[in-house]
Structure formats: structure tokens, C-alpha cells
């Protein structure tokens, strides 16, 4: 028997009927076609599936869609607003903070939360904040640099 899920994603309200075992990542990707949320491991280890659930960076591969009932979710597709990239998106693009791009959506969502909690993080604080998101391409160097760049551009110092 399906469950009803009411969920606001990137500002749009949805009412969906899905099997109870549907994961939030599956709902976003398969039901709402928001394929920018990537799935790399299914076990919360890689962080590619990270989205904001009521403002908290959350690994959507290990949360049931039903648990997100009533929540407001932001995915990578919802970061830009009014035709402008989010400063984090701009920074990852400008500072070459990606290679293959697969971890990038989850990495950026986590970075958004880092900067919301601390607009001027140190390198160590950025690395600590990103520790749940694996990148296999970059060695993290340009990712850390991109977050630093976004912090500087967003008024942090």
C-alpha cells in the first residue's frame, strides 16, 4: 500500500503517493525528475545525494520519502534563484572545484550549510564540514578553495 507524501521541493509543493520503502533520493530523481541529486553508495557514505531538508544537509539516500512528509527540500536545482547562480555554484564553476561533477551537487549543498553556519570558516573548518562528502577526482584542493572563494564573495572574510 502506498503512502501519501506532501513535500515542498525547491519552492514547489507536491503531493505524491509512493511505496513506503521509497527513499527520498528515489522520489526526487524518479518521481520529480530532479536528477541533479546523485546516488553513489546507498549507505550515507559518499554524500553525493545530499540535499537540504528543512535547512539541514541530509543524505537523501538513507531517508525514506515518508520521513520527509511535510518538509521543505532544496536540491541542487533549487540553489540558483532569479536567474542568478548561488555564490557556491559560481565559486565551484570559477575555481574549477570539480572534475567529473558527480559529487558536485552534494558537495555544494553541504558547502551552503557550512557557510550558513559560519560565513568565515577556516580551511580546517571547511575540511571538517565537508568530511562526509567524498570526492575521488580532485583531492579536495579546489573544492576547499571554491568554498573559501564563496565565503569571501558572500561577505565573509
Amino acid at each position: 500500500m502506498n503512502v501519501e507524501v506532501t513535500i515542498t521541493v525547491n519552492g514547489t509543493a507536491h503531493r505524491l503517493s509512493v511505496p513506503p520503502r521509497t527513499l527520498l533520493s528515489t522520489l526526487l530523481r524518479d518521481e520529480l525528475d530532479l536528477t541533479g541529486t546523485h546516488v553513489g553508495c546507498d549507505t550515507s557514505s559518499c554524500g553525493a545525494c545530499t540535499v537540504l531538508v528543512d535547512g539541514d544537509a541530509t543524505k537523501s539516500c538513507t531517508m525514506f520519502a515518508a520521513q520527509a512528509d511535510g518538509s521543505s527540500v532544496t536540491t541542487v536545482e533549487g540553489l540558483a534563484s532569479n536567474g542568478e547562480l548561488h555564490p557556491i555554484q559560481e565559486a565551484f564553476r570559477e575555481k574549477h572545484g570539480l572534475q567529473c561533477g558527480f559529487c558536485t551537487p552534494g558537495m555544494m549543498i553541504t558547502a551552503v550549510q557550512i557557510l550558513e553556519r559560519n560565513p568565515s570558516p577556516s580551511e580546517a573548518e571547511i575540511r571538517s564540514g565537508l568530511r562526509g562528502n567524498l570526492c575521488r577526482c580532485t583531492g579536495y584542493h579546489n573544492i576547499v578553495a571554491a568554498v573559501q572563494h564563496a565565503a569571501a564573495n558572500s561577505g565573509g572574510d
Partner: protein
Amino acid sequence: MVATFEEKTDYSVVGTRPIRHDGLDKVTGRAVYGADVKLPGLIWGDVLRTDQVHARILSIDTSEAEKLPGVFAVVTHKDFPIAADVEVETGEEVLNMKRTQDNVMASDKVLYRGHVVAGVAAVDRNTATEAVRRIKVEYETLPPVRNVDEAMADGAPILLEDLVGNHFGERVPNTNVAIAVRHEFGDPDGAFDECDLVVEREVSLESVHQGYIEPHNATAVWDENDHVRVWESTQGMFAVKEQTAALVGLPDSNVTAESVEIGGGFGGKTKTYLSPVAAILSRKSNHRPVKMVMDRPAIFMASGPAPGGKVRVKMGVTKDGKIHAFDGKLRYEAGGYPGSSFTAGINCMRAAYDVANSRIDAYDVVVNKPKSAAYRAPGSPQVCFAVETVVDEICDTMGWDKMQFRLDNASKEGTRNGNGVMFNRIGLVEMLEQARDSDHWNSPLGEPAPGRKRGRGVGVGFWMNGGGKSTVDLMLQDDGTVAMNEGSQDIGGSRASIAMQAAEVLGLDAHDVHPSIPNTDEIGYTGTTGGSRVTYATGFAAWEAAIKMVDEMKVRAATLWGIDEDDVQFSDGMFSSKSDPELSLGFKDLASRLGDTGGPISTTSSVNLAAAGNAFGLHICDLDIDPDTGKTDVVRYSVFQDAGKAIHPSYVENQMQGGAAQGIGWALNEEYFMNEDGSMANFSFLDYRMPTSLDLPMLETHIVEVANPMHPFGVRGVGEVPIAPPLGAIPNAINDAIGVRLQEQPMKPGRILEALAAKNGG
């Protein structure tokens, strides 16, 4: 005949750092990766993976799975035609199609835990998974062969009864050694007697995985005309096309591989696992499109790893600081089927050192592990570990400076590598000199936190780089921008590095060349993105296609001006008459007037480059060790590498950093941790310990540019080299810190504690 090019420095696009063309798609979530593909009527595929490590398949009963509502098809090896017993070049390695088919769908035996035995297509993924659970397989369990020593022991269980080994030219049946080969010149045995110091060590390595974050995936449709269309995350869409065709029994031309974004590969996505299964499932499901995605345990247990094995090195030096004799022996785990990276291991083993008396023996050994795959400079890190730690020990024993010793013995143009091949122009000496003179090498170590020990190590690594086949099409637009089709999958910014080479010739901005990667029917043959070949070979094609475009535009300008085409010149983005200074047109102005001169301009270039420019890297690592826990922290890290010419320096640096990070993980923590029964124990990202952001410092990069004379801009290739040097720099730094020479990888905390305990007497 290989063309040679003069080195130039006055570039306007090459060497700059434009934002990549696909950057916007990748920061907005718009980029379409393989798992994002959706088609009308899509159904899901799944596979049964064996829990056996080594077993004979007695029977497969699929009847209960077939009865489950929602199931469209169940397939086993009986649904596949028997693939030809032929070898096919895949860019980074050679694959035997019959063995590859057995690897994709087991026939008589399973050779590792996770080996696919059957496949299912069903209405949704949960139904497919449930159907897989209902398949019953009877096995005769066989004893596992877990490593090269067990595989080569007398009376070892034989994995492949039909394998006839080639052992130094002799055909040998009933063996687990597929190939044993020797490269020898000079008189190594005699030369060792003339040495003042001989050091001999053997290192052992576990399998490691490429660890790409994107899982393997494939979607396939087998239509009513027997044409198959596949979408697979791959480094080579032509490799997917060829392998799928061979495995499902169709001509190459009946398979089209579509281009999708790839979420990392590092060599592990050069062979196909899922497309042939998805295609056969589609055929049996009334031609519905079938989508398959591997889960992470399957990725670890049944795809990829780089070979573990053993590498022995014996090196002799004379007291004047010269290496006089070398004897190496490498034994690599191929996995369940032949084909480890042993050849590249030979090529890389002592490439950095000029030795007159040299022998290298290499063994390709089948064991009960997943078929090994290429992993970034495949075969190079393993030999780097052995050779670079022996070099370090020799320098310590003799009191020699580690940079000077490497300079005194450095390979140069004309030096004979361990495989017997003479080097072309290489930049090893220039790179060593930059490292020797660097801030890092000349800075004091600094003080670690109280109780910790700090050490510094250095390691040198090598890769041949690749050439091969590539195609680029350029299509001039009315507005003077250029659309570019190329056949290389873009893993790390190669759209930009290829477009930039066309833009340089055309006098355009990098962003005026618009790159696309179409499907295999829409672009000429292009080899796999691997072996550090793309910026070199596909870039070469872009350069050549751009020259053709300029030549054609000169003809059009001549037509427009009513002058002889030999009178037209092109420089700095302007076409002009050599004889009449009044006649000149900018590139974009001329492009807008093509209609008056004979229609659109499209040019193409297909190249097959026989040779590539070899490259070396050197890494300096400072690390701290906590003697109480054995934990290692890398505190400063520098990467030096000869790129030939960095087309896009940011992406070159990014390759150097990414490769170093993988090599650091390989050296310190990553391994296939095997159970007693030969199955992998740590098949998740939690237990397979790849570096996180907390494990690494910022990675300092130093691009050395010694132009490759075989490329118009001097490109060598950069992706492979940086994974190798950490396997030397890290153990050498550990020895510098705590005075123990570890000979087993990974150099994890427990191993360091054991070594410290042994050193301290207990």
C-alpha cells in the same frame, strides 16, 4: 614517420584558464549522467551475483523468478551467443572477448564473489530484485586461490582449465600463470658482482579500487531490426559499442553507444559490465528499454580493482653513485581472467633510472578476485613502491643526497628503458632540478606536535602516455563561432582542453568553440579516454581540423577578393592579402559571408598517433606519525610533473592533485581486506577507506614544461603519472619519521604500530 614540432611560447589561448564549457551544467544539476537516462516504457534490470569465491556451476533454476508477476525476462549465459576467442584493444588494455563474456555472465564457473550468474528484467527495480532472490543455483565449491603465491604453488587449484600459459615463450597447460615474460640487456648477474652495494627487497600489495563515486550503469534497447542502442557511463563509447556487439553476437554497426556524462572512471570504466546484459534482457523483454545500476557492494566485489601482488627489486650501485645493475620481478594479480597491467609495470619499473645491466621478469597471474581493470597509470604505482623505497634505502646507506642520486642516474633522451625502448625527448632532469631547487625541498621539516614524529620522503613515478585514434569535427557557424564534435568522453575537463587547441589555431576565444560529444554514429572512431591520451591525441585532431578550417577560409577570402589563394594569410584572427594591405577581414566577419563564397565550412580530422610523450612526476611528502596510535597525517605535499605543455593549467594541476590524493590513499589506507575464504570484507565506502577532506592538506603543484616534440603545442598527457609517486614518497617519509621500512601496502595504523613494536624489541 612522426611529425616533430618546434617549441613555441607565444600562445593566446593555450596556457590560459577559461571556465570549462560544461561547468554550468555540472553546478546546476543539469548534466545528464548514465543513471539519469529515462526512456518511454523503461523497465529495470538486476543480476544475481554469486556468494561463492571459486565454484563450478552445476545448475541454475530460474523457474520461480519467471513466475513472479512483473518479470519480463530472466537470462543466463545460455542466452548469450559464444563470443569469439579474440583480443580487442580497449585503449588502456587488451581484452579477450570470450573471457570478457564469461566475466559479464558466468558460464561454467564463478571465479570471485559477486560474479554474475543470471539477470532479470522487471517492471520496476524492487520486482527485479525480488525475482533475483528466487533464482536457485547449485554449485560445486572449489578451494580459493587468494594471491600470487597460492596461485603459483605446486598443486594449486586451477581457475581456468582451458588456459595455456605462455611462460618465457613456452606453452604451458594446467597453470594459473597466463604470461611470464623477461626483458633483459647487458649482463645483470655479472654486474652485481662489480657493485659496492646491492639491496634486494620484496614488497607486497593488496588490490585497491578506483573508487569512482558514480556507480556503473547501463540502459539498452534492442529493437526489432536487431539494432542495439546503449547508454552507459564509460570512458569509451566506442569500447562499449565494440564490446557489447562482440558479447551479444551482433556486427559493430548494429550497436550505437550514446554519450552520457561520466562520474569518474580512472580506468575502471574502460570495459563494459552491464550493457551486454541489459541488451539481452531488452531483446527478451519484447524490446523494452532496460536500465541497470550497480550497487556499491557489487562495484567493489565485481568491478575494477588494480592488481595486488608482489614486486621484488634488486639494485646494485658503485661507490661513485651510479646504478650498475638492476633485477626486478613483478607478479600481478589479474583477477579471475588473464590481463593484469604487468606490461605497463615493466615499462614503468625503473623508467627514471639509466641502468646498463637490467633484467625485469613479469608474471600475469589469475586468482579468485574480480578481473582487474586499469587504474590510473595501471601497473605503475606497484613498481614505484618497490623501486623508490630501494633507491631511498641505498641513498641512506651510502649517505647520498636523494635528489642528486636521481639526477646522476636520470634517464634522458636516448636512454634505454627497462623494456628495451629508447626514450624520446623527456623532461626528467628538468623536473628533478625544479624539485631540488623548490621551497619545499629546501624548507626545514618543522616541529610536529609533542609526541609525534615527522618525516619527509620523495618518490618518482612514470607513465608512457597514450596516442591512438581520435576524431574531431569542426563546423563554422554564421556568427563566426565554431561547433566542435569530438569522440572523447570528458571526465575532467577535456572538452575545454580540446576546444582550446582548436581556438588557438582559429584565433578565437576558448568559449567561441562549442564542444559536444555525440554518439558513436555521429563522430569518427575515437579511442577510450584513458592512458592520458585525450588532450594529446584528440587535441592533435582538433589542431589539425582547425588548420583545415583556416585553409578553407583562405580559399573563400581569395574568392571574395578575387585574388589568388596563395596571396591570403591568416594571423591574429585576421585574414588579409599579402600584396594588398587594403584587403583584410576578421575571422567572424568572413564567417558571416560564407554564403557568397561556396556554402558552409566543416572540417574533420581523424588521427592515429603511434607514439606519445613519456612523462615523469616527483612528489615530496611531509607526514606526522602518532607512535601511540600509528595514525599518519600528511602535513605538506608537493607535486612536480612534466606536462609537456599545460593547455589548461588549472586542469593539469587538478589532475596532479587528484592523482596524488588517490596515491596517498593507496599507500596509507586503501585495500581489499579479504576474508579467509577469499571474499572481500570491506565492500562499502565506510570500510574501504578512501581519503576524505580531513585526510589531506592543500596539495602544492609545480608544472614542468618540456615540450613533447610530437605534439603541435608540446602536450604529453598528465592524468596517469601523479598516482604513482605517493607509493614511494609515503613509505620513504614514514621511514624518515620512525626509522622503519614498510614493505607491505597499505601502511595503515596497525601495520605502523606492529613495525614500531618490532623495532623496539617487542
